């Protein structure tokens, strides 16, 4: 079966990079399957059955090289690319961490349209090519802290959200920024099936306060590891807010809207006691069901990797962003 898959992939034209990643990933996937009995969901999952029985050729999602000048770096060890692209919370493509890389391969990102509208004087629409050309691209290495208490270090490529918002000329009523992920149940199995999609309502919505959105750290990312974004990481364009829990960093964005009122956000709607609007990384405020005081940093290394580290306030970006919240009770505004 491994042979089979290798053949499947070698028949397509790919860069060496991609082939390595996919085969490493698929080998792991294979091992997981060989382990045999998964849960009841595996018995039900028709896409899992398709893995076993279908002979359909799947054209893998392709990424292109992207050059950008590095502007922000860190001493932290990078999470290997193979892990960054195979461990994703993107429920539109399934709730297991390794579902998105499997289910998003045929995701179509070109053509794409991203609109910036609402309380702005000059609404903007960016097409697929504009995403890479409208603003100078930078490479920034950021820590990414998931609300589930694991973290990664990722070399993103993108441009500051502030650049885009400024260009649209927000008016005085623009107090918040709302973001929306593509809604396309035909391409995103999680949106057509509550079982695959984890029972959340789509499209996925996120939001920031305008000063958070304009902070220089807030990035719209179009790539990682020197290439355009893989589908499972939120291609073609996603938000990266490094001082907030990962669920704020919404993927595959089609709409950005400046608003006067605080917009609704997906996880907050689903479980307001567990996920707030702000969702700043905060070791002092636990998730009701687990501690946020420390995290497991995912790098290379297997089961014995000693990777539990202390979680820092604002994920270590306090110097840049703490002033945004100086008169706020962050226990209430979690």
């Amino acid at each position, binding site marked *: 079966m491994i042979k089979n898959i290798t053949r499947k992939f070698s028949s397509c034209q790919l860069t060496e990079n991609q082939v390595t990643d996919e085969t490493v990933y698929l080998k792991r996937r294979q091992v997981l399957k060989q382990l045999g009995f998964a849960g009841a969901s595996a018995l039900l999952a028709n896409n899992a059955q398709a893995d076993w029985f279908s002979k359909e050729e799947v054209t893998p999602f392709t990424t292109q090289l992207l050059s950008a000048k590095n502007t922000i770096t860190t001493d932290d060890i990078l999470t290997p690319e193979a892990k960054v692209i195979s461990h994703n919370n993107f429920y539109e493509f399934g709730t297991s961490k390794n579902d998105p890389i499997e289910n998003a391969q045929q995701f179509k990102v070109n053509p794409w349209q991203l609109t910036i509208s609402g309380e702005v004087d000059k609404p903007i629409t960016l097409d697929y090519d504009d995403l890479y050309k409208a603003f100078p691209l930078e490479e920034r290495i950021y820590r990414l802290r998931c609300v589930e208490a694991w973290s990664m270090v990722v070399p993103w490529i993108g441009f500051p959200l502030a650049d885009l918002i400024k260009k649209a000329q927000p008016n005085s009523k623009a107090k918040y920024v709302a973001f929306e992920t593509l809604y396309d149940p035909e391409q995103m199995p999680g949106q057509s099936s509550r079982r695959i999609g984890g029972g959340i309502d789509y499209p996925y919505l996120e939001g920031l306060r305008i000063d958070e959105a304009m902070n220089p750290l807030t990035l719209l990312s179009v790539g990682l590891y020197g290439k355009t974004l893989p589908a499972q990481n939120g291609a073609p364009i996603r938000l990266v807010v490094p001082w907030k829990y990962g669920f704020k960093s919404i993927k595959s964005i089609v709409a950005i809207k400046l608003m006067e009122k605080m917009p609704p956000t997906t996880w907050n709607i689903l479980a307001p006691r567990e996920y707030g609007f702000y969702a700043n990384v905060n070791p002092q405020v636990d998730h009701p*069901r687990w501690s946020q005081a*420390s995290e497991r940093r995912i790098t*290379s290394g297997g089961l014995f990797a000693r990777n539990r580290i202390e979680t820092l306030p604002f994920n270590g970006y306090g110097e840049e962003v703490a002033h945004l919240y100086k008169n706020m009770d962050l226990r209430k505004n979690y």
Partner: protein
Amino acid sequence: MSAKVNNNRIVFSLKVAIHVISLFLLSNLYFQAVSDNLGADPVEAVLHFTGIGAFNLLILSLIISPLAQHFKWAFLLKIRRLLGLYSFTYALCHLLSFLAFEVQFDWSLFISEIIERPYITVGMLAVVILLLLTITSLSLIKKKMGRNWQQLHNWVYLALCLVALHFYWSVKSEIIEPSIYIAISLLLIYLRKNKITRWFK
């Protein structure tokens, strides 16, 4: 004569199969996890697999009695204990993996998580029950306990409920799979309703 010999053979083969499958899956899991072949986060993979494995084995052990009763396959009862023991083994691996690989021997975090997080508290209680059942499963102890043994082992249904709750409370939003497990658990309890109502009389 031949029927009995046959049944003994079936029991023997089933026991061999339970040993081989359970041990192979468990050792393969840890081997792959140590060599970083279980996806990006081997810790999550190990915790999920041992947890679901323990639950599956517990369900299998509890489906034996209704099956044996319905089909008059008394010999099946001979594999019930082994399934229960492996359920405990998987549950213990689940707990120890949480301690060793998730919280990485941060004992104060380990203890505060058990106390403060309801889903971990109920999971821990289930492991304690399974531990008691495992210790008292020795024939010698069973004989000494007399009638008390059955009373203690009825607690397995409480453990089943706690495990189902542990799973349901542990997920973020994907409640369908744990709901299926809750339904299976309730069905198992329903199948033993005559026995269970007798305890309360």
